[in-house]
């Protein structure tokens, strides 16, 4: 993964641009593919690194993540099942856009976009673009939230 921060920032930016109120659902979608870490931590002592790595691959694929998000939506929402699924789906899409552009390569599960139909990988080589993106978005969001907080405090004073 590029970094958790990069995923969260891209999710936040997309949620801001599309004016989505329930940002946390988009963010949950952004983080859902990386739920593999928990499974990896559980499986590591029993299976060892190679097998544990193989075990987590399906979770970190678009198909696996979408199915997981369906499961999560079915737990959370009574009436807004599809809407919540769509918001999480948006987060998942942003996650894989960043992962496919990652460099250096860090695990094939980031590029298995058509799993389980094929093991063929798809991606674009963008150098260290994701890191630059993280820094740029960090700065942009810090400015944005800083400005918002300043305005809020000014309003309270007046």
């Amino acid at each position, binding site marked *: 993964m*590029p*970094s*958790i*921060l*990069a*995923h*969260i920032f891209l999710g936040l930016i997309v949620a801001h641009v599309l004016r989505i109120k*329930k*940002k*946390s*659902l988009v*963010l949950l979608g952004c*983080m859902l593919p990386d739920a593999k870490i928990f*499974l990896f931590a559980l499986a590591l002592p029993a*299976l060892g*690194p*190679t*097998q544990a*790595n*193989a*075990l*987590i*691959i*399906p*979770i970190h694929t678009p198909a*696996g993540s979408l*199915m*997981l998000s*369906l*499961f*999560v*939506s*079915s*737990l*959370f*929402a*009574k*009436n*807004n*099942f599809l809407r*919540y699924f769509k918001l999480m789906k948006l987060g998942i899409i942003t996650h894989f856009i960043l992962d496919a552009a990652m460099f*250096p*390569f*860090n*695990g*094939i*599960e*980031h*590029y298995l976009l058509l799993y*389980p139909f094929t*093991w*063929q*990988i798809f*991606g*674009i*080589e963008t150098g*260290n673009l994701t*890191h630059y993106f*993280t820094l740029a978005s960090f700065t942009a969001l810090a400015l944005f939230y800083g400005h918002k907080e300043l305005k809020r405090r000014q309003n309270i004073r007046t």
Partner: protein
Amino acid sequence: MKDMGKRALGLACLFIVCFLCIWSLNDAPRNWCIMPPTEYVAEHPEIFENKSVYVDGMISDLEKVEGGTVFYLSPFNGLLRGLKVESGNRTSLQNGMTGVNVYGKVVNCVLSAERIRTQDTTAPLEFFFNVAGLFFFILIAKEEWRVKKGFPYLEER
């Protein structure tokens, strides 16, 4: 009844994911880097350019690396690339090498101190971003909890 259908769908999806995970234990390509016949590739780097190659080796060979540059083929455009490896730093080595051994076909190339193409210095930065990201995620969740007096999504159940 509708809720039952949704829950059944959710559970079915979870079951499918679990099945795929267990299935991939045997089916997945081994995503570990493989040490190549070092001297041979160092002498003939042109052989590995724009080609997929099979090389035998084991993950345990990583322990033997004492620094230098790891050369490998980009799985996307087939170009020969290199990453500098810190002495005894397994993490940075894995960053550069895993994912190169795609589908057990495209394999990283060679460890050689003589040829340095690019340097990978992003590992500590990435660690910082991951920690900061987790912190930020918790902060957002906390704020959401404070503003909305609990997670409304859970209350809608």
